[in-house]
């Protein structure tokens, strides 16, 4: 009986402990954020390049095709009601409020999050973080916070690019391919959308950026310092980010409606 209890509770306890450690780690990150941002701005810029600029191609390609598919689906269904002009509204709402922030966060986890986690995990496994500490350099300021900030800055920008390219994709499919009137497409879209709708997307992208970056840096930092441990950390980064982003997406949407 006690064995059964222990088998049920110890993973739960382990999860809670892990979560608590991550929250404390997050507080540490935030504590060093202002100093790092001001004094080590160059490092942050380098990480914006790693996390953001290097992800831009994948973001744009995916955005284009996701937007195109939205255009196709919206058109195919709206055509039945003779409302093809509303294709733009549908694609824009889906992109700006949901698909843009969520897919960008997932792509970021896959492209940049895994790279961050494995890089930090390897630095730990090869004693580089300890070596820094022994050289009286705080790895928090030198390694972790710049990477965290690089992600936090990159994700909202990537989301904006994804959404914009997605709209372009929807435009290409609906207007150029299926013959929706270009004026109707954009005018209806502009009339239907509020600035608040765009803000909702921006809020989501900021939250997702913080969460995805935190999880990547945390999984790398808390990885078991072996080859196997680093491998597992990268997997956990993607899984944890996907779950967290989808749950938070629901919660944010629910709280804003």
């Amino acid at each position, binding site marked *: 009986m006690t064995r059964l209890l222990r088998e049920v509770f110890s993973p739960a306890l382990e999860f809670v402990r892990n979560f608590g450690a991550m929250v404390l780690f997050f507080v540490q990150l935030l504590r060093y954020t202002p100093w790092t941002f001001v004094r080590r701005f*160059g490092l942050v810029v380098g990480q914006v390049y790693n996390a953001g600029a*290097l992800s831009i191609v994948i973001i744009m390609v995916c955005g284009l095709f996701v937007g195109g598919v939205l255009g196709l689906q919206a058109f195919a269904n709206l055509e039945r009601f003779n409302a093809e002009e509303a294709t733009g509204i549908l694609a824009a709402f889906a992109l700006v409020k949901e698909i843009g922030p969520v897919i960008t966060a997932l792509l970021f986890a896959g492209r940049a999050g895994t790279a961050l986690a494995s890089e930090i995990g390897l630095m730990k496994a090869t004693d580089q973080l300890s070596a820094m500490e022994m050289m009286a350099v705080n790895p928090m300021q030198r390694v972790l916070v710049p990477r965290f900030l690089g992600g936090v800055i990159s994700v909202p*920008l990537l989301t*904006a690019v994804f959404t*914009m390219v997605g709209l372009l994709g929807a435009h290409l499919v609906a207007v150029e391919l299926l013959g929706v009137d270009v004026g109707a497409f954009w005018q209806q879209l502009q*009339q239907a*959308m*509020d600035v608040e709708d765009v803000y909702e997307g921006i809020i989501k992208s900021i939250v997702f950026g913080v969460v995805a970056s935190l999880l990547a840096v945390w999984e790398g930092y808390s990885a078991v310092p072996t080859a196997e441990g680093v491998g597992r950390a990268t997997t956990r980064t993607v899984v944890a980010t996907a779950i967290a982003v989808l749950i938070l997406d629901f919660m944010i949407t629910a709280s804003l409606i």
Partner: protein
Amino acid sequence: MRQNLAVEIGTGLFVLLGIGALFFLTTQTTGRNDFAGTDTYTVQARFENVGSLKTRAPVAMSGVTIGRVTNIEFDGESLEAVVTLVIDRRFSQIPDDSDASILTAGLLGSQYIGLQAGGSELYLEEGSEILFTQSAIVLENLIGKFLVKSGSDE
């Protein structure tokens, strides 16, 4: 810090692209700022019933958007809805006896205000009021009338 050139240029381009995209999304996909930068003048119109007219609905003349609804209020004394419109200053020669009606774009589309030119020599200007207005056609009322009418025909 020593960054190499490619990193700096790449980061710069990326951030500029991102900010450009944000700007695009906030300005080009929403209707709010259409007339924000341009020179406009404000007029008012009173309606018995505005139906489902919303702020930011377009004001059109001959089918071309020339302004926006910026405010809808209820006047407790006259028991009418007071609608405030801003109109682009380029269209400053609208006769002051023009009439404003609330129309619907398509069968189930959103509502907008259509202006029909009058014949007066005087023009609408800042603060003037459009006197001739026609309320929104409320679909339920219309159907009701139609049913009564078709009933009495038999």
